[in-house]
């Protein structure tokens, strides 16, 4: 995967937000939220990258940054070699104008209902992007293209669906409309931020099948952001894509989807996999997750060293003191855990006692 084939490349990207906690903190030091910390990621052409993490881990910010919707506080974001923010700011030597970049990078949101204008028909909603980006097409050509796309995504009869309002569509149909709106731009990359997990279980596979089909047909890449490992597996696994596991602003493990799931290296990846419900009946107690605390630490004050050390079942003294590098563990696979390095000092230090689990770890033996 060379950087040249990448649609979007992030290099050493930080996104830090300053956050004032409320009126009383008006005169205090603002807190800094490290939403994204030092992330380097290439999204190749015609590929799927699934970013998985819990809420507050920065995955949505990462997605917006990759799309040029969020300016990084450090590092660069480039589209086919063109620095996105230089293009945006109108630098002199721009190869790809910002408008082209905006068109090439599209988004579908978690809640299709609220991303569609309730007062407009499907047709009116879908005509807008074409008016802007394809002004040369006649009205008939635009409508024909829209009807064709509706048909493509299974909303048939398209002539009927085109004149419905969002409230006359099911959740799945709304989401497909949002997908069509993105696809009409002929994008190179679509950011799908929790675009599947809000759908009913029986519709998820259908929506992802559609995304896979369209990927094949239009060579569109997907940046798929979710907290749901099962959905990520279905999409990224079938597209031979990669899985990136995010924790408190950092990518802690990344690699080919199938490999990461079959043999997760990072303790956090293992926990996520463990927590994914399967179709099995459980008797007796449900075990607690194998973490030393169920709540995520405050992102304004991330733990020292390895950020997962406050919850990690494998944490040792070394993890508290030293930040973890990303360790190469095979072709296209990286993991940020000392355990991946057999020469690490980690192995010579003491395991952390359970009390360090923080404010929510106790009371397990009621």
């Amino acid at each position: 995967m060379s950087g040249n084939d990448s649609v979007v490349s992030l290099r050493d990207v930080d996104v830090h937000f300053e956050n004032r906690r409320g009126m009383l903190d008006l005169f205090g030091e603002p807190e800094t939220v490290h939403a994204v910390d030092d992330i380097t990621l290439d999204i190749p052409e015609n590929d799927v990258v699934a970013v998985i993490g819990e809420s507050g881990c920065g995955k949505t910010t990462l997605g917006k940054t990759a799309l040029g919707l969020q300016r990084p506080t450090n590092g660069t974001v480039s589209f086919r070699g063109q620095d996105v923010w230089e293009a945006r700011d109108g630098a002199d030597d721009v190869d790809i104008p910002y408008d082209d970049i905006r068109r090439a990078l599209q988004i579908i949101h978690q809640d299709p209902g609220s991303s569609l204008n309730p007062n407009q028909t499907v047709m009116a909603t879908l005509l807008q992007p074409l008016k802007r980006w394809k002004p040369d097409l006649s009205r008939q050509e635009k409508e024909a293209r829209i009807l064709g796309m509706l048909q493509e995504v299974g909303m048939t009869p398209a002539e009927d669906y085109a004149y419905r309002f969002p409230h006359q569509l099911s959740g799945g149909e709304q989401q497909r409309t949002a997908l069509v709106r993105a696809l009409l731009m002929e994008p190179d990359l679509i950011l799908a931020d929790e675009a599947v997990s809000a759908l009913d279980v029986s519709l998820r596979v259908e929506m992802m099948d559609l995304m896979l089909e369209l990927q094949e047909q239009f060579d569109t890449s997907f940046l798929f952001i979710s907290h749901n490992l099962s959905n990520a597996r279905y999409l990224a696994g079938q597209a031979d894509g990669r899985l990136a596991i995010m924790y408190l602003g950092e990518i802690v493990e990344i690699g080919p989807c199938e490999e990461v799931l079959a043999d997760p290296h990072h303790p956090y990846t293992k926990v996520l996999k463990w927590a994914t419900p399967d179709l099995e009946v459980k008797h007796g107690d449900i075990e607690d997750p194998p973490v030393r605390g169920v709540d995520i630490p405050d992102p304004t004050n991330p733990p020292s060293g390895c950020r997962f050390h406050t919850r990690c079942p494998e944490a040792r003294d070394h993890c508290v003191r030293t930040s973890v590098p990303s360790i190469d563990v095979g072709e296209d696979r990286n993991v940020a855990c000392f355990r991946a390095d057999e020469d690490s000092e980690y192995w010579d230090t003491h395991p952390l006692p359970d009390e360090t689990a923080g404010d929510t770890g106790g009371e397990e033996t009621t």
Partner: protein
Amino acid sequence: MSPGKDVVLDVEGARVQFEMDRGVARVLDDVDLSVSREEIFGIVGESGSGKSMLAASMLDAVEDPGVLSGSITYYPSPDEPVDILELSAEELRQLRWEEIAMVFQGALDSFNPTLRIGQHFQETLSAHNVDRQSGMERARELLSDLYLEPEQVLASHPHELSGGMRQRALIALALLLEPEVLVMDEPTGALDLLMQRSILSLIKKLQRKYNLTIVFISHDLPLVANLADRIGVMYAFDLVEVGTAEDVVEGARHPYTRALLKAVPNLETPYAEMQPIAGRAPDPVSVPKGCSYAERCPLADDQCLDVHPPYDDLTDEHRVACYYPEEAPAAIPLPFEDQSVERPDDPPEAAGAAPGKEGSR
């Protein structure tokens, strides 16, 4: 239901209708259901299936313009029936916290943003004339049961807590007045996997510790499978299959249940075996006269289209509203199921139902 069962909540012919411009919408269609004391009963259904309406019906909490009919009987003890639909507003208000409590999805909306969490507990206690000191003691214990730091949480405003902490605080609040029954509607829907899993494990522990009966409603079949003792599957405003968790997950006989099991993305099933359910659920204004699933069902024939199927009691526990429960396994095979199970009179296969999961965890 089978006699002799210690039933705590008995729903009979529960129906909710409301008038729309297009006609009368029936969003709950003559549901019968008995919840046994101290069990965890899971209700699974997709959006619009009527599962939340069923939950609201259990507390006579259906909102206008919905009209609930049928009968809902609560048994604080076996020979002491309380007809919930006959209670006065005041009786109902007391029943709702002290006997049957509810936790809904989206804890943020359930708390008043201007009040500290502790004030919610105190107000609930005084509204029900409960001694504040012993009540707050119980509050602290419940919060600790839920892995929360009691003093810190009680002193916080709702927005100062994470979604998972808020949801746990809400569960503690629901249990404050020692209810017998806890009805939870998508209580983990907005939470991350790890938090979901933690809350499931907590719910199970609370159920044991406080001898609770829990009705747990979710669209997430794997989640319910991991938690419930018995499961009811809703489709188009009625229960189509009810049984033990094993019956429904490992020996499902309703074509819809089986299709749903096949449609759920998970980490084990081969990709090709996961398939969406074609077609769409019926409109509440025009529910088909026959089986509501017939239009999407590979087994449907004229009878299915014409006459609503009655329940077929496969065992004491396992009932299915389908004419073809014996044919369903072969017609809709499941990847994790042994295909040698078409024996009508056998109890649904329990052992060896999940081959190919060797040592998964």
